[in-house]
């Protein structure tokens, strides 16, 4: 499984393993990158984040799940063979992809952490 591990402020593509975290959700762990305290790209986490924003807007779960799947596909396609990407790039691209399906959802996703 291909994931992106974060190195300082960069997300770096590398190989990793998948395991079940304490939250019960599958977490992608890159042992090498965890040492520098970075977080790792995970399709599951991205999908979970999109679905959570969908709940905030009271969207139908099934519809949001479908959007999330499509967006995850498109984001993974965008990542392609890039050796590294920044978290800001990932958020921007994800929001742009969501925007095709739901403008409000894209807005709330893009503005996470920019309210205060």
């Amino acid at each position: 499984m291909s994931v992106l591990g974060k190195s300082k402020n960069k997300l770096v593509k590398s190989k990793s393993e998948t395991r079940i975290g304490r939250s019960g959700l599958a977490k992608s762990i890159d042992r090498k990158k965890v040492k520098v305290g970075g977080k790792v790209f995970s399709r599951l986490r991205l999908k979970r984040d999109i679905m959570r924003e969908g709940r905030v807007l009271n969207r139908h779960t099934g519809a949001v799940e479908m959007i999330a799947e499509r967006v995850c596909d498109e984001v993974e396609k965008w990542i392609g063979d890039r050796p590294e990407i920044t978290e800001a790039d990932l958020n921007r691209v994800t929001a742009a992809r969501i925007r095709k399906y739901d403008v409000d959802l894209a807005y709330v996703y893009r503005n996470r952490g920019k309210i205060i």
Partner: protein
Amino acid sequence: MNDLLDLFIIALAGLVHATLQLGISALLLLYHASLGKNVKRKTRELVRDFNLGISLFIALLLASTCFVTLVIFGGALPKSALVILVGLIAAMAFGIWFLYYRKSTGTELWVPRSFARFITERADKTDDGVEAFSLGMLIACAEVPFAMLLIITAANSVLNLPQPVQLLAIAVYVLIATMPMWLAQLLINNGKTIVDIQRWRVKNKQFLKVISGVGFITLAIFLLAFKVMTDF
């Protein structure tokens, strides 16, 4: 007539307090965090407790400022202190115009980024009423650097009122100062989403900034005219 004047000053100070944005920002954060994981009813309860926390903190701060003023000055502020207060309030208007909002496209405020992250994390972890209440108190406390002058102004006017009206005056101030939060809760309960409110805030950011600064200036002029210059 004097009592009416003091009540008007309290209302005006409360109105200017209401234009400060930290409370409403934190409320939207709490809504955002809670709606993502809780049912609507639970979210409503959390937001109500958050608003009560803010309200209680402002009420306690105003009451204790009244007490401290009474102990130090034996009553309302003397003219010299009022002159300083007027100057500081006028200066605070510039603080609002140039410091309160960060230069970004969103509604990021003056609070240090580490503290903003802390609030975001706390909003995310808030799961029961006590936590929401405490978060409300924390937010009201964090707003103190900009709100303290307004509280002092209101406290001064509260002390000029007859004793039976003082508690009512404090309640009026708190109600007006927390009005945006209650209004936001009402709007969201009636079908608006946080996106609608946040979009409105972003769109009207400059307007809110101007209104807030002008409010400070108006209060300063009002105090100068009716409290400082009355005996000259």
